[in-house]
């Protein structure tokens, strides 16, 4: 056997292999150890995670416990809120009933004193005024409590924009006069018919103008309404009331701005120093998907803007159809009517007020008595209280309508509740109208005019405004002003209409016609109340009469 002689290179290579084998062996061992360590490390981490998870779970449990107790507390608060809202609604109902009597009887005394030109008349007027204010306040309180409880249901009606803007409260107008304030109103040219809760829009306008009046002694108030966008479906409105009054101090303004821009849900907003008017405006605006903005500078005045978005448009133009509807309503007044009310003061009040004016009014404390009286006397209209012991107003309605001899008589629901749901319920039940207590004699007057000589089947409900229309062709002198009438239809400017009416007044005085004098009185009233739609209609009739005649 020959011994293998290894050369240096081979020896070195063998060495190298030995080195690498050792390195590999050690690396493997270390890898195993490291793997072992990783597992231990992860296990420890895992334990740590478990510990932390357990801690978290505990914290979460504690939080849930806290949440539950908070929820309980919230429920208590909500209950208390509901009780408070209910209490407010009840108490306001209770308040309205005596107010009804105060207001009514004051009105009677006022009428009587006025005839005899006695001093106390002005005091009584104050009483009436205050009672009206109290009524408004109660209405606002109810709205507020409903808004807070989320129970306010908007009652959307088809109403033209002009109609909303032109109905300004008479007492506001008086205040404007008293204070020597220049009141300017800017109305857009378009007059679309909108589906909107006009009552509440009017309330906002009323409060905003009222606020402006409070802080302006002399100067001007500008009420500007703009249609920001108008399509066949939707409209966006901007109403702005700008005064040149004292303005709001910066700190306070900040507070109001904060209140107006906060989300509606932040319940802890303090109402302090805001006044019920602004709070109400804001809550109503929220309800209508609207926003209120305010700008003010001390000494320069305040501007409040109401933006109403996404208002449904019914028709783009209101004026075309209106004229037809309003014309040719015969002026015949209902002179005999029956009041069914268990609160005897209510019937006596109405009896006293109207009997002096030559009306015949019967009062019945119950449905049964009412039926008896109606059969005997055949009244032209019936006012029916809703809440009565025994047979209530709905039962009464059913009984009257089921009697053939009485079925044609219009029946007006007469109630102290101004809840839209109650009003809607009454309408659905078949009442022709809904008259709110305390009775406002002007409204009742309108109703008596509206239902005068009508049978219930002819009634177009919800039109409460009486419109007189006379044959102007008998008064040719009025034709001289025809250009002015046309002008007023196309671009109504209040001061120009005032001038026209002064001229019309002279002509009316010259004719000495009772019919014409009555019409003129209505026109003047419409001017005071900014009832532009009425004025426009009348100017249209005048224009039509005289232009036809010329042809």
């Amino acid at each position, binding site marked *: 056997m020959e011994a293998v002689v290894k050369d*240096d290179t081979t020896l*070195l290579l063998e*060495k*190298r292999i*030995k*080195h*690498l084998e*050792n*390195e590999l*062996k*050690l690396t493997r*061992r*270390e890898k195993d*150890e*490291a793997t072992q*360590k*990783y597992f*231990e*490390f992860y296990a*420890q*981490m895992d334990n740590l995670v478990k510990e932390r998870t357990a801690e978290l779970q505990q914290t979460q449990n504690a939080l849930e416990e806290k949440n539950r107790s908070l929820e309980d507390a919230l429920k208590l608060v909500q209950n208390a809120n509901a009780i408070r809202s209910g209490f407010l609604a009840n108490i306001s109902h209770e308040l309205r009933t005596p107010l009804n009597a105060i207001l009514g009887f004051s009105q009677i005394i006022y009428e009587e004193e006025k005839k005899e030109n006695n001093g106390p008349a002005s005091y009584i007027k104050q009483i009436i005024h205050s009672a009206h204010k109290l009524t408004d306040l109660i209405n606002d309180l109810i709205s507020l409590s409903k808004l807070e409880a989320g129970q306010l249901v908007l009652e959307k009606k088809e109403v033209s924009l002009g109609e909303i803007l032109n109905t300004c409260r008479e007492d506001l107008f008086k205040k404007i006069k008293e204070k020597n304030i220049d009141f300017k109103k800017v109305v857009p040219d378009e007059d679309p018919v909108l589906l909107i809760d006009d009552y509440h829009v009017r309330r906002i306008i009323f409060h905003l103008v009222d606020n402006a009046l409070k802080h302006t002694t002399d100067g001007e108030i500008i009420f500007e309404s703009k249609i920001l966008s108008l399509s066949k479906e939707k409209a966006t409105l901007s109403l702005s009331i700008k005064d040149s009054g004292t303005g709001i101090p910066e700190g306070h303004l900040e507070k109001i701005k904060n209140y107006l821009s906060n989300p509606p849900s932040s319940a802890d907003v303090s109402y302090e120093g805001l006044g019920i008017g602004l709070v109400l405006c804001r809550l109503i605006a929220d309800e209508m998907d609207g926003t209120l903005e305010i700008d003010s500078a001390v000494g320069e005045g305040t501007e409040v803007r109401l933006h109403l978005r996404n208002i449904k448009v019914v028709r783009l133009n209101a004026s075309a159809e209106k004229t037809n509807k309003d014309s040719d309503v015969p002026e015949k007044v209902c002179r005999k009517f029956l009041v069914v009310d268990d609160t005897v003061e209510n019937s006596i009040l109405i009896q006293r007020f109207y009997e002096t004016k030559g009306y015949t009014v019967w009062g019945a404390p119950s449905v049964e008595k009412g039926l008896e009286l109606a059969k005997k006397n055949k009244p032209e209209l019936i006012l029916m209280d809703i809440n009565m012991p025994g047979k209530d107003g709905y039962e009464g309605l059913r009984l009257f309508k089921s009697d053939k001899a009485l079925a044609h008589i219009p029946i007006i629901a007469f109630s102290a509740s101004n809840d839209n749901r109650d009003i809607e319920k009454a309408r659905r039940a078949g009442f022709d109208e809904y008259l709110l207590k305390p009775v406002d004699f002007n409204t009742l007057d309108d109703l008596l005019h509206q239902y005068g000589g009508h049978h219930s089947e002819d009634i177009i409900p919800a039109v409460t405004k009486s419109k007189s229309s006379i044959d102007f062709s008998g008064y040719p002198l009025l034709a001289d002003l025809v250009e002015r009438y046309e002008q007023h239809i196309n671009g109504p400017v209040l001061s120009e209409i005032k001038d026209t009416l002064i001229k019309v007044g002279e002509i009316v005085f010259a004719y000495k016609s009772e019919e014409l004098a009555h019409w003129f009185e209505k026109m003047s009233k419409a001017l005071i109340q900014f009832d532009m739609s009425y004025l426009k209609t009348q100017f249209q009739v005048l224009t039509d009469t005289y232009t036809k005649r010329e042809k």
Partner: protein
Amino acid sequence: MEAAVQTDQRTERIERILSAINDSDLSSIKSVVGNIIRLINNPKSTARDLKDIISIDPPLTAKILRVSNSSFYAAQTKIDDVGKAIVWVGFNTVRELALRQKACELFDRDEAIEGYRRSELWAYSVATAHFAKMIYRREFGKTGDNIYSAGLLHKIGLIAEEQFLRKAFTKILHLANSKGEHLSRIEEKVFGFNHAYLGREIARNWNLPEEIISCIAYHTNPFEAPEEHFEITAVMHVAAIQCHFAQIGYYSATLFDDELYTRCLEALNLEQESLNMIIQEGQLEIAEMLEKGAL
């Protein structure tokens, strides 16, 4: 009698140095380095223990994270936590890294005295540790954990002399340079002990394992080491000589004792060619670590 007085003086001197070390910045090195070395020697130690030791020392943590994120370790994710470093870079590597970074603080503040530089001493220590570990692994098939620690710390006595016996140390260097005499022998003449002996006392004071104490104590003459520690001490000595060959030096005066070196190679049954192979690779590794920011 005379010898006894000398011994007393030596002990007293060393004790003064030890208490000075314990009062100085080096004490933080003592606790962290001691803890890591104990961890290495405890088979039951866990990754979490290592994490806890490192996390106590924020500057050390920052250094370890910086090095772990260097391109040398090519981590696939940003390492922002010592736990992650242990998972990505490896338990053993982080352990070594921590030790190296902490021991590095010993060599802070570079300053040249008579051809001596701390930074060069540091480079020499790291290279010695690295080479010793490689030789130990490749030739003997043993993990080089303690030998690596010992390599990093074996010149601790010299550091202590330089820091706490500055004047005498400068004189010794001057003598060694001018006379070409072996440094240890001059130290013994001047101080009554050499840096290896001082290192041993420091290592004992730091409660380091016996194996490491022997390495430090006898790295200038492995044949004086206890029998059970001869192998590791001799490998250390051989590795240090390799640094000398490769001119990775701390000091221009010669430390080389050819006869002692040959005896060591024979006793360890090592051949220069095979060592050359290892050192060549080791130098490449060190160069790469330097280039990629791992040192």
